[in-house]
């Protein structure tokens, strides 16, 4: 029979049973515990483990020879971007850096996507989206709005790795409840400490991770969410008229990002089940993935490249939902002018208030 040593949840020392109190008492910090409390705490500790975030790798499939012949890939010599399109669409400019593309290659050596979400919004809608994005921004330099090359919006299919998983989580928290009261001479504060344990599972479908190194990851994540219910099985015909990016970040490299987001969501969801405490702090958490699956899909994005005062600006619109994102430059002259005016105004008002209060 293995000897069981209980550790004190307060200071970590070894606890002993005190026959006078009929309770467990820590000889180092003098805190007393009920038997059940320690047993529960110990059980929680046993359930601690480490994360297990592994994926099955069976995404994508191989192209058939016919399909390979129907597609061309283009390489940009300026930035190294590689895009794919069908025979009928000519790629004349690199959508990432604006330079004219040169080489045309046979498509080879890459996986065929499992799914594709076709473009739901056309170029007109994209231009409208851009105009709306630029309107109503107080600190946007006026010149920026006029200097845009609106016609050069391009529709691109961006490769994404999609991850499905069931996440099992064991999370342990330390919570406190605080009550205060006072009498004539003292203010009393009682803090009660709890060990909170939650174990359960949560399912995730199609968590996307950008598979193209040329497409900035933050831009692609900002354009989310995509509604997978509108995805269809891939067919080359969908590429007509649009450009598609080949993946160059493989699934292995994308997994850590998916893991991060899934773990974060799981911890959030479980944290929401803990309520009624003044403070809650997670002490240990482990998340394990079950029945995980990786898939390869193309998602539609409208891209616009612009240069302003030597800086490159990249805008993206979700080709399915119309969400438009892109960082805009600041008109610093306007910023400081308005800032100083506002500062003067607020200073005058606060001085006036101080003056009036002083008169009272």
């Amino acid at each position, binding site marked *: 029979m293995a000897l069981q040593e209980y550790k004190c*949840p307060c200071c970590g020392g070894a606890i002993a049973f005190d026959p006078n109190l009929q309770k467990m008492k820590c000889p180092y910090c003098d805190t007393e515990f009920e038997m059940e409390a320690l047993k529960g705490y110990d059980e929680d500790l046993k359930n601690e483990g480490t994360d297990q975030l592994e994926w099955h790798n069976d995404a994508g499939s191989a192209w058939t020879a016919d399909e390979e012949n129907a597609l061309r890939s283009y390489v940009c010599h300026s930035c190294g971007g590689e895009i794919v399109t069908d025979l009928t669409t000519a790629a004349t400019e690199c959508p990432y850096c604006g330079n004219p593309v040169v080489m045309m290659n046979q498509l080879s050596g890459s996986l065929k996507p499992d799914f594709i979400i076709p473009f739901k919004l056309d170029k007109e809608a994209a231009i409208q989206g851009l105009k709306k994005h630029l309107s109503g921004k107080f*600190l946007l330099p006026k010149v920026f709005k006029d200097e845009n090359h609106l016609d050069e919006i391009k529709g691109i299919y961006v490769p994404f790795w999609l991850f499905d998983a069931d996440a099992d989580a064991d999370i342990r928290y330390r919570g406190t409840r605080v009550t205060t009261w006072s009498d004539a001479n003292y203010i009393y504060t009682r803090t*009660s400490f709890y060990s909170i344990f939650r*174990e359960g599972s949560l399912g995730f479908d199609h968590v996307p991770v950008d598979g193209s190194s040329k497409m900035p990851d933050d831009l692609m994540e*900002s354009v989310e969410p995509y509604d997978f219910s509108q995805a269809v099985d891939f067919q080359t015909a969908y590429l007509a008229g649009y450009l598609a990016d080949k993946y160059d970040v493989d699934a292995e490299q994308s997994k850590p990002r998916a893991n991060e987001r899934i773990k974060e969501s799981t911890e959030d969801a*479980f944290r929401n089940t803990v309520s009624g405490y003044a403070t809650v702090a997670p002490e240990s958490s482990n998340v394990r993935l079950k029945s995980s699956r990786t898939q390869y899909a193309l998602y539609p994005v409208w891209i616009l490249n612009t240069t302003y005062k030597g800086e490159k600006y990249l805008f993206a619109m979700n080709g399915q939902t119309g969400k438009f994102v892109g960082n805009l430059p600041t008109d610093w002259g306007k910023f400081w002018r308005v800032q100083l005016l*506002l500062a003067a105004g607020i200073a005058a008002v606060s*001085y006036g208030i*101080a003056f009036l209060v002083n008169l009272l």
Partner: protein
Amino acid sequence: MKRLFAVLLTLLLVALIAVPAVSAATNTNYVVDNGNLLSESEISDLYQKSLDLQSKYDCDVIFIAVGSLDGKTSQQYADERHLPSEGYSDDSIVFLVAADDGHGSKDAAVSTKGACINRITDAEIDRMLDDITTAMKSGDYYAALDTFAADADTYLSYDTPAPAKGPLPWYWIPIAIIIGFLASLLIMLGVKSKLKSVVMQRSASNYVRQNSMQLRQSRDTFLYTTVTKTAKPKENSGSSTHSTGGTTFGGGSRKY
């Protein structure tokens, strides 16, 4: 008959002399020694101190040393010493030390009247009575009264009249400027942040499968509890008052 008339006249004269003048508040008996507890030099020293305090703080300060309290409590005795009929000013303080309270202990009391009630608070009176403990225990009544005088000097100096409402001090101008600058900076940064829309997603909350959350085990275990207490800050509680002979007095007393 002549003899009777002479006796009556003598009595009348004595009575007239004995009754102090009431209308003029000009009793200058600031040091009273009814028990031969103080020497001549000590009396004149205390007298001088009393005059000092009066000129500084506009309060009559009366030092009294008695052999016995005549059956009264020390507080009562001290109060009666500066009733309006005694002729001191309207704002006065009596410091009393008694060699015998009738029960074998020494006694001391402080009595405040008029404006002086609020100028010496209960907490200050308490401390004064603390300060004279050694002197009282050793029977050094001059030292006790001297300590009273020193403490009175300190505590009376504490409350200065409220400053007249002058114009807003000059330093409000830079303060207002700083407030204006910071507030407008915050506002402008808020407006500027509208220009930024590209940010990494924090979690995969959009991709959670509907109704897939299963909570299999849920345990909230009570561990232990601690109680801490902090002392409430003692505010300056002011002065309590009582009434003797129809006049309101403040003050306190203690036996030694």
